[in-house]
């Protein structure tokens, strides 16, 4: 059976990608942020995952409002990045896979998540920045990625409890897959931030720290929020917590998790940037 090794939650803001392109990791603004990542990279190096399921939100590259899926996932052998319009460099294609992807699709539909399935989809910074952070120098080609997009842009969007249940169904699907693949899940985005309106710049550090704390053993305390409450507590784009919750949901059923890393840095661009690594007993 395929095994879930653990989950990683990370920021995905575009400025991180730009900073890496320009080699700014050791400048005063970025140093502390990037110093958090080597322990997580070392863990990945040791664990050698075959597949990464990445929960992210598309910011208007693949999906526009003409057809905006609430939940979408890829089932393709490869995914490409493209011009997003504001200057982040495009990155080499991302390796996909189709067997586990279709297995997950079947499992989701069987368990009442009627998702959109994409056999071709462009992936934006929500997915590419985390990959670049985990495998710098664009050395992510050996990892097969399954992109899972959650609408976090236009209301209505999935409730936190639903995103969590969605993640849980994906975790169940992985556990029932007859292969020996090692799988990790990633939740990207967040934490608190608001880009738009007179309230732009709003960050809620205590709430972010609370979320990271509860993510380990009591995620149900976070799934009780509505998206409206998340906007209130974490800013308009704080609803990206939904991707963290989907990641955490996928690990439900793995028993007690080991928190191997947690860091939080503020501000990175307009956000509170969190990084968290939760390992299962399947990890070495």
């Amino acid at each position, binding site marked *: 059976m395929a095994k879930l090794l653990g989950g990683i939650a990370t920021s995905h803001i575009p*400025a991180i990608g730009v900073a890496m392109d320009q080699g700014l990791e050791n400048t005063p603004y970025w140093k502390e942020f990037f110093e958090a990542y080597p322990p997580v990279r070392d863990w990945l190096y040791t664990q050698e995952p075959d597949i990464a399921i990445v929960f992210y939100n598309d*910011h*208007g*590259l693949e999906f*526009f*409002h*003409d057809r905006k899926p609430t939940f979408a996932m890829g089932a393709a052998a490869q995914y490409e990045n*493209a*011009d*997003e*319009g*504001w*200057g982040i460099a495009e990155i080499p294609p991302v390796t996909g896979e189709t067997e586990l992807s279709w297995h997950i699709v079947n499992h989701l539909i069987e368990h009442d998540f009627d998702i959109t399935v994409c056999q071709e989809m462009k992936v934006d910074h929500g997915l590419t920045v985390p990959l670049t952070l985990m495998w710098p120098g664009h050395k992510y080609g050996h990892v097969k990625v399954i992109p899972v997009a959650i609408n976090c*842009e*236009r*209301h*209505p*969007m999935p409730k936190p409890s639903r995103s969590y249940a969605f993640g849980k169904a994906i975790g169940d699907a992985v556990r029932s897959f007859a292969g020996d693949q090692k799988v990790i899940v990633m939740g990207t985005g967040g934490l608190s931030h*608001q*880009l*738009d*309106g*007179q*309230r*732009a*710049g*709003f*960050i*809620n*550090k*205590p709430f972010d720290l609370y979320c990271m704390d509860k993510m380990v053993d009591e995620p149900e305390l976070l799934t009780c929020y*509505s*998206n*409206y409450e998340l*906007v*209130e507590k974490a800013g*308009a*784009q704080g609803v990206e917590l939904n991707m963290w919750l989907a990641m955490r949901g996928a690990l439900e059923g793995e028993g007690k998790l080991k928190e191997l890393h947690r860091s939080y840095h*503020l*501000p990175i*661009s*307009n956000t*509170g940037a969190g990084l968290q690594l939760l390992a299962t007993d399947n990890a070495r």
Partner: protein
Amino acid sequence: MTQTVDIPGTIMLDGPMATKGYPLNKMCYSFNNAAARNEFKQDEEAYYEKFKLTEEQRDAMRKRDVIAMLEAGGSIYYLAKFAGLLGLSVQDVGGLQTGMTTEEFKAFLVKQGEI
């Protein structure tokens, strides 16, 4: 989502706002394409017409008034592509919306970590 109580300084992009903002957001979505960005720069008014922006949206665009763009249904994810076309960062855009300079806005962000 039904918004019952307003969150000050926050315009929820819900269904009715997405309907209102559709031409503006569609225009900004086109800025993913370099040829479209050039076409816009050549003749902004013709580009507004091409996407049938409402008068309110054209006015907000002409004035580079981000709050007015949001009130006209703009989604910040798409407006960000317009900001990129103008060479503005998200901190510049934050300053424009809050009446701060970019430096003041950056300092405001830092201050929220000091608790």
